[in-house]
Structures are given as structure tokens and as C-alpha cells.
């Protein structure tokens, strides 16, 4: 089955094309240009360069978050538009579930951490070392203490990855102590091939989302809703 994967939830704009057996093509940009301008041209090039007729595409995999709210919507609106235009289903995967695949071989905790701004991180914990990452702590938007606390509940070495490392490395390192590990810089960013990998798994386990019923995984209320709830508590 031929799937196209998109990811625009972080600073990386990435697209990939492949089937269960083979990654056919992947293009990624990690530059500070708007995803809105880069995503479609990348996708057009990807499909053309892979020599694939777009009518042969059988489904779309897209990250639904967590990440930049605007980035989530650019990716999802594009994925849903492709789905509507090509008449193929969409499968949504979380950014953290996809990123965990980068640490699948690590025999211990795999900890994808995304910078959520406002001194918060998006994170989830997985156990690696098997054929697929196994979730051990669900995704959350929280302060760094919560992440450190979650890591300290487990005893294995902890492998950190994701764009949250840039800002929070020192704290994570001191919290995890001798258990701290990290993936080299070039291997720890979001890539659409990881989304493809997770996409195939979700497709197999749960099937694609019913038409347009794909929900964004914002993990956080909008500012206005948060303030409204606080005021009316």
C-alpha cells in the first residue's frame, strides 16, 4: 500500500512516500521558512521525483500534534485536502509516537521532548528495544518538573530526542543523572519517514480515520479558553 506522509508540527517541514517494504522518497527542510510556502512544492517534487502517478497513492499519513498550532493545521488541512481530492483515507499519528521510532532500538526509556514554549514541553515516554516503541507514559503538555518526575519513576537508562533538547538539555541531564543518553543531533529531529512508519502501524491496528473525522491533537487549550475557564472556575 502506497502512503504519503506529511509533518509540519515543528520547525521541520518533511514529506515522505513509501509502502510497507520500502521508503521510496523523503524530503525534509529544517529552515525558518513558513511551512505554508514549502509544504506543497516539496510534496509535488516528492511525487514527481519518485516517479509515482498520484492516482496510485492509497492513503495519507499526517502528524496531528502536539506541536505548533499553526503547523498542525497546515499539515492537517493539506492532508485532508489531498484525501478529499484523491478520494483516499487519512491516518493521523501523534508527533511523539512518530518521533519515538527514532529510538526504537534503544533498550530502555525513549523520551521524545518537544519545546512547547511558555516553559513547557510536550512529552511521552516509551520503551524501546523491541520491534516497535511501546508507550509507558501518555503524551502531556507540562512543565519540565513533570517530565523529570516521570523519568525518575523508571529505572532504565533514558534516551532523549526531539527539538526540546536544545533548550532543556542541562535540566534533563541533571535529572536523569548517569542514566542520561541522547541521540546525535542529526538523528533526533522529526522526519516524515517516521510518520510513515507509525502511519502503517496505526493503519494496521485501528484503520484510517473515517472521512474528515481526523482530530487535531493540540494537547492544550487556546489562551482565550484557558483564561475563560480560570475566570469561571
Amino acid at each position, binding site marked *: 500500500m502506497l502512503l504519503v506522509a506529511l509533518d509540519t508540527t515543528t520547525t521541520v517541514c518533511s514529506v515522505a512516500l513509501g509502502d510497507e517494504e520500502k521508503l521510496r522518497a523523503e524530503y525534509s527542510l529544517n529552515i525558518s521558512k*513558513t511551512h*505554508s*510556502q*514549502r*509544504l*506543497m*512544492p516539496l*510534496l*509535488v517534487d516528492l511525487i514527481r521525483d519518485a516517479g509515482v502517478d*498520484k492516482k496510485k497513492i492509497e492513503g495519507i499519513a499526517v502528524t496531528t500534534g502536539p506541536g505548533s*498550532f*499553526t503547523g498542525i*493545521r*497546515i499539515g*492537517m*488541512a*493539506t*492532508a*485532508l*485536502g*489531498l*484525501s*478529499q*481530492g*484523491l478520494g483516499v483515507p487519512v491516518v493521523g499519528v501523534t508527533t511523539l509516537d512518530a518521533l519515538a521510532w527514532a529510538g526504537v532500538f534503544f533498550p530502555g526509556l525513549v523520551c521524545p521532548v518537544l519545546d512547547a514554549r511558555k516553559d513547557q514541553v510536550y512529552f511521552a515516554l516509551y520503551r524501546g528495544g523491541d520491534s516497535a516503541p511501546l508507550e509507558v507514559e501518555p503524551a502531556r503538555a507540562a512543565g519540565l518538573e513533570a517530565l523529570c518526575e516521570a523519568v525518575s519513576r523508571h529505572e532504565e537508562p533514558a534516551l532523549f530526542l526531539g527539538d526540546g533538547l536544545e533548550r532543556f538539555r542541562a535540566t534533563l541531564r541533571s535529572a536523569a543523572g548517569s542514566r542520561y543518553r541522547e541521540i546525535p543531533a542529526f538523528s533526533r529531529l522529526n522526519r516524515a519517514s517516521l510518520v510513515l512508519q507509525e502511519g502503517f502501524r496505526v493503519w494496521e491496528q485501528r484503520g484510517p480515520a473515517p*472521512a*474528515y473525522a481526523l482530530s*487535531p491533537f*493540540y494537547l492544550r487549550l*487556546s*489562551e*482565550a*479558553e484557558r483564561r*475563560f475557564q480560570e475566570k469561571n472556575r
Partner: protein
Amino acid sequence: MFDEKGEKMGHKTLILGIETSCDDTAASVVGNGRDVLSNVVSSQESFHQRFGGIVPEIASRRHLEVINPVIDEALAKAGFTFAHLDGIAVTHGPGLVGSLLVGVSAAKALSFSLDLPLVAVNHLEGHIYANFLTGATIAFPLICLIASGGHTSLLHVKGHGQLEVLGRTRDDAAGEVFDKIARALGLGFPGGPVIDQLAQQGEGEKFLFPRALMGAEGKLDFSFSGVKTAVLNRIRREKEQGKPLPLNDLCAAFQDAVVDALVEKSARAVEYLQPRQFLLAGGVAANGELRRRLRLRLAPLEVEVIYPPLEYCTDNAAMIAAAGYYYLRQGRLAPYDLNAEPGLDLENP
């Protein structure tokens, strides 16, 4: 793709319009730039009400939830499928960036998937094209007054895509002051329709509010912050006296002041350029008093006054599809790196 020969043979050029610049998610199918075959608008009003105004993040979230079903509905109501379309037109600005991005991303993906040409429409220009949906024959050059919640401009329209701004507001937009005064009077949001209604039972002469930039200075520009401040001060003083607010009279006097400025500047532009047609566009074009007074004032100037039906005054995608049809005929196609342009102006389309 646009096909003149096909059109003459009776084939209609069908454009799907997509509009998500603010808080309404809209899609429409329009034939030959004038026949509205469907016009679907999903209003978000109830989502923003408890916040007392439009919250951009909530608007963006809602657009993403409904855009695809809204497009499907527009096609179904028109009785067509994607295979019948000749092009896709989408609003790329001005507006709220997060809202615009949902429409632009969806439109690009559809255009690519379906091999359909994509055109990017300036939302304000779209408002002008709402007048093409009236059945009237529009002939350039003409003058158009666009008055909405975000914009107030007088334009000299010389042809498709050839615009000259004659005057614009220097501060608040006309629709914006209607909303602010309505809020101060506790009338809710949006303010235009309520004020229009209450004003009909009021006497405008009871209060005198300033008319903006009526002198030669400023020429055809507008300014509404003066009248806004005067009305807000009057509301405060009336409240201090502890008596019930003379709502109807306040609304009538306020509306008179805004309409006066709009009508007077429009008349000056018509006297100066002597066009044969004058178009009204934008949400404020729905105001009954503005329509009545414009007719009255412009009648002796031998200019035909045209305004869109109410449903095409407020934001909709039919006007975007109509504009898109003419863009397509001119070959003005949008590339796949099209971005949302929240600050898009009228003179750099």
C-alpha cells in the same frame, strides 16, 4: 481550465470558491462568474460569543473542523462533483493569518490532487465581485465603496484587477465602530443589524455627533474615531444621569453620522469622476439606511447604484468564486508556494 469556445457552446465554467479569512467557513460553486449554484456558509458566531469577539485561535481550529464537509456540501448542493470543476479560487488575504492558512492549504491540496488551476483572490476585491452576482451588467470604469468590519475604502475600478484607491479610513473601519458602539450599548455582536433596526424607531436629531473629515482637507479619506469617541462619551454621560438610555435615538444619531460621511464622500467621488455605475460592497452594504441615502443622494448624478443581495454582503465564497472566474480568464494563476497574506492591500493584488 477556462475554455471560451466551450462557454459559447453552452458549457458553464465552474469555479469552486473557498473563503476562510475571518470567522466564517464558506464554499460555493459559481458558473461563469455570475450564476450562484451553491453558497454554503458555516458561521462560527456561537463559538466566539462568550469571549465578546472573535478569538483567532478558536476561529482557526473551527475552520479546520468544518472546511472539508463545507466544500462537499457546496458541491452536492450545486449538483456537481469535483470532476465537473474548471478551477479553484481561494481567499489568501487580508484577514486572520491562522484562518486564511486553513483555506489556502486545503485549496492548494485540492488543486494538486484534482489537476485544477488555482487562483488566489484578494478578499476585498472579492467583495466587489459580489455585485456580479446580482444579475446586473457591470461596466467599467466604476466607483465602489467597500465598507466592512475591517475596511472602508472608496475605489476607482477601471477593469478586472485594475484598482485605484481614492480614499480610505484613517482609523477605524465603519463596521468596526458599529460593533464598538453596539458593545457599549450592550447590544451584542455583531452590531450593525441591531443598530440599523433600533435606529428606525429613533430620532437622529436628538443628538448631534461630528461628521468626519467633511472639509476639503483629507479629500476622500474617512475617519470614524471622532464620532466613536463622541458617542461613547454621550453614552457615559447618559448612564451617569441614571435614567434609561435613549437607545433608539442614540442609534439613529450615531448611524446618521456614519452614513452621512460614507454618502457624502461617495457623492464627491462620483461628481469628480462621473462613472456610470456605483457599487456598494462589504458587510456594511447591508445597512438599510446607507442604501436608502446613497440612492437618494446619487440619483441626481445620473449614476446607477448597485448593491449585492444581503447574503452576498457579508463574507461568502460565491464572491470569491466570481472574482476567481475573471482571474482565471486573465490567466492569473497562483503557484503552489502561495502563502496567506494577512496584510494584503488593494493596490498590490
